[in-house]
């Protein structure tokens, strides 16, 4: 990320959202809203002084809710760019310092009374007297191609009522990842959230929300490997911690992956084949995992101090709005749909828009890197060539027959049709770079003014005749 941020040919827009996309391959116009950070990023050095003075406590998203951040915060220590933002919805406007108001003057000192974050900033990056707009700033970009790489989120534990989600020592694997991180809430020590003590026994449960008809029927693909990774790191660091892993199946399809798994068995990590159906909370706060060992054909129990749920990867809710903006379709599982599952895995139905990473489906880091490089190369091709080849079977409007009723405009799934002036009247016009030749407009046109090349009535009738004639 640091390399990206320092590359003169790359403009990095963080804390920003795509508002609108129009145009077509080679000529996309993208409106991007740079959200209001309330901190002057030109001045902010990322020193973090302000974050330490803020009195607000909000669950820290980056640490998966395991600790708190202030209303003014830097997302995480390695953030690029490392700049502070104010979460204005949670800001309590200390000292009455709402943005755009003048400070009160201290009767005692005669100086203005500032909010702690303002006072703390050595660079003068926070000035609450400025009437900053909560809307931020909208940038209009002209781009030739677009790569969508919006990523994933993991399911929260609260969905899984059978696994005692109310108990603090039942955590998601992402939360464990934060507990294991040197920059996480415990500085990398594995401690039970309930009492900040080291666990003696840890249970991992796989396929929580994945491969599940109630939630997601797909396999999240990465859980088996990251759980084994987490288990092995814990076991190497703390050999005395007992680790039990409950699996439906262990899935390790990747280079060196199965060797990584079998080595985990050799290191003394216990694998149990069978999905647990419940967790009992014991009086001393430990968690009794109700499991089943399919190989023994016996119910088993594990009294654990910490239970880790490998909750499913899923796309964030707002992916639907982004899909609409980009005219992309989503598959049955909610991920962006590629043009062809085998032969066009990074292309989409919209020419010039490409996919990379988990927004297209669950995948691990090596697969994501490969796909991202593929998407980057694919996106560079039309830019380098300066032209694109389009399919011949697309629709065209005969402006003489078109009545200008506009019925076809909202029907087009690719936003390829607009009403334009033709000889003084409004007539439908199909942008041929956007048309995919689906034929919806041709079928709907009451004036029969739209033809789908290759599928005109005459052509279809000729085909029928040829197929039904005797020979």
């Amino acid at each position, binding site marked *: 990320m640091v390399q990206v941020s320092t590359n003169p040919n790359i403009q990095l827009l963080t804390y920003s959202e795509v508002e609108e996309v129009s145009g077509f391959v080679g000529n996309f116009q993208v409106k991007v809203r740079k959200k209001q950070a309330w901190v002057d990023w030109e001045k902010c050095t990322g020193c973090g002084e302000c974050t330490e003075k803020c009195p607000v406590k909000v669950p820290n998203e980056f640490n998966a809710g395991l600790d708190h951040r202030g209303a003014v915060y830097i997302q995480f220590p390695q953030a690029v760019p490392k700049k502070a933002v104010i979460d204005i919805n949670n800001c309590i406007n200390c000292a009455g310092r709402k943005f755009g108001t003048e400070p009160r003057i201290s009767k005692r000192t005669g100086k203005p009374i500032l909010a702690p974050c303002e006072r703390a900033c050595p660079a003068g990056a926070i000035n609450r007297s400025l009437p900053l707009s909560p809307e931020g700033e909208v940038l209009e970009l002209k781009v030739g191609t677009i790569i969508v790489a919006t990523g994933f989120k993991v399911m929260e534990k609260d969905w899984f*009522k*059978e696994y*005692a*989600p*109310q108990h603090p020592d039942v955590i998601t694997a992402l939360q464990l990842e934060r507990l294991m991180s040197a920059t996480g809430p415990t500085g990398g020590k594995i401690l039970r959230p309930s009492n900040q003590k080291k666990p003696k026994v840890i249970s991992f449960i796989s396929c929580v929300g994945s491969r599940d008809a109630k939630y997601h029927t797909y396999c999240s693909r990465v859980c088996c490997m990251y759980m084994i990774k987490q288990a092995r790191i814990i076991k190497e660091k703390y050999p005395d911690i007992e680790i039990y892993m409950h699996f439906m199946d262990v899935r390790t399809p990747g280079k060196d992956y199965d060797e990584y798994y079998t080595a985990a068995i050799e290191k003394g990590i216990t694998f149990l084949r069978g999905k647990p159906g*419940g967790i*009992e*909370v*014991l*009086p001393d706060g430990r968690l009794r995992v109700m499991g089943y060992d399919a190989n023994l054909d016996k119910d088993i129990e594990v009294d654990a101090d910490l239970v880790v749920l490998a909750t499913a990867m899923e796309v964030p809710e707002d992916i639907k709005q982004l899909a609409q903006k980009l005219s992309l379709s989503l598959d049955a599982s909610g991920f962006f749909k590629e043009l062809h599952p085998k032969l066009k895995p990074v292309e989409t139905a919209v020419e010039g828009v490409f996919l990379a990473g988990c927004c297209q489906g669950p995948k691990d880091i090596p697969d994501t890197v490969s796909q991202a490089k593929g998407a980057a190369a694919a996106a560079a091709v039309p830019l380098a060539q300066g032209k694109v080849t389009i399919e011949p079977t697309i629709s065209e409007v005969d402006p003489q027959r078109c009545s200008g009723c506009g019925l076809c405009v909202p029907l087009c799934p690719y936003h390829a049709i607009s009403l334009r002036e033709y000889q003084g009247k409004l007539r439908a016009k199909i942008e041929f770079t956007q048309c995919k030749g689906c034929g919806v407009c041709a079928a709907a046109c009451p004036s029969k003014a739209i033809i789908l090349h290759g599928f005109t009535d005459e052509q279809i009738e000729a085909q029928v005749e040829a197929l039904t004639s005797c020979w």
Partner: protein
Amino acid sequence: MEKIGLFLGCNIPLKAPDIEQSIRKVFPALGVEIVDLVGASCCPAWGTAPSFDIDTWLALSIRNIVLAEEQGVDLMTGCNSCFGVLSEAKHLVDHHPEKRKVVEQKLALIEKQYKGTAQVYHVMHVLYKEIGLDRIAEKVKYTLKQLRVAVQTGCHLLWPSEVMQVKEQNPFYPTMLKELCEALGADAPHYSKLESCCGMGAMRSTDQEKSLSLAKEKLLCMKEEIDPDMIVTTCSSCYLQFDGAQKIFRDRGEIDFSIPVFYYTQLLALCMGFDPSEVAALSQTPREEIISRIQSKARMVKED
């Protein structure tokens, strides 16, 4: 809700009629009139028609629900098993038009018609949702303060949550009965096997020892973890199991303690001041001592 149809089932009227009497006492006192579903039959129990032929099960269950419909009331069961059988039957018939057609044909044989207007509730649901904790607390004459209860909701009130009209927020961590006990002043702490099965029903008649092993595991869990003054349940089967199994364990010398068992409305009736010789008179595990403690001057919070 001004009145409700009481579906008796088999266990309550024939094995523990003091539970029936307690239901008949407390509901009118809380403002809900009890209507008898005259001519009701067995739900039918899981081991009968449901184990032979689905359509026969559905017809017998729906006939019972129709008895409530005919009187313009919803139906309330005291037995969890009846609740499960009737709720699942109603769910099946209401969600599968082809099943509904078969049932309608069968009911035509006995000149009955199913409209689908009556809901199936359990005593616990009506107490919790319709009457409410506040109204219950207001009627308490003898408080259960300083008494600890082990609550036993019973499986058929928890799962499958899909078919329930009134649902626990988390069926694996049920709280309705706990709150109902707390409304009487009692302490109802969590214990680890809160939602586990007591082993009654079909298991008891198929393999008594295995059935008793479940009851014992749960009983010991209650004793060791929270040492309750009594067990309180909303399931007549759980009631019979815990009441009867303790006697067996004591006779065999397997346990040296005795925890009185109450169906919730029995306890509620006692707290409301009803006569124990009517509402809590039949049990194998002695209850006299705890009953006299409950209905003592020291616990009285309200005069008549």
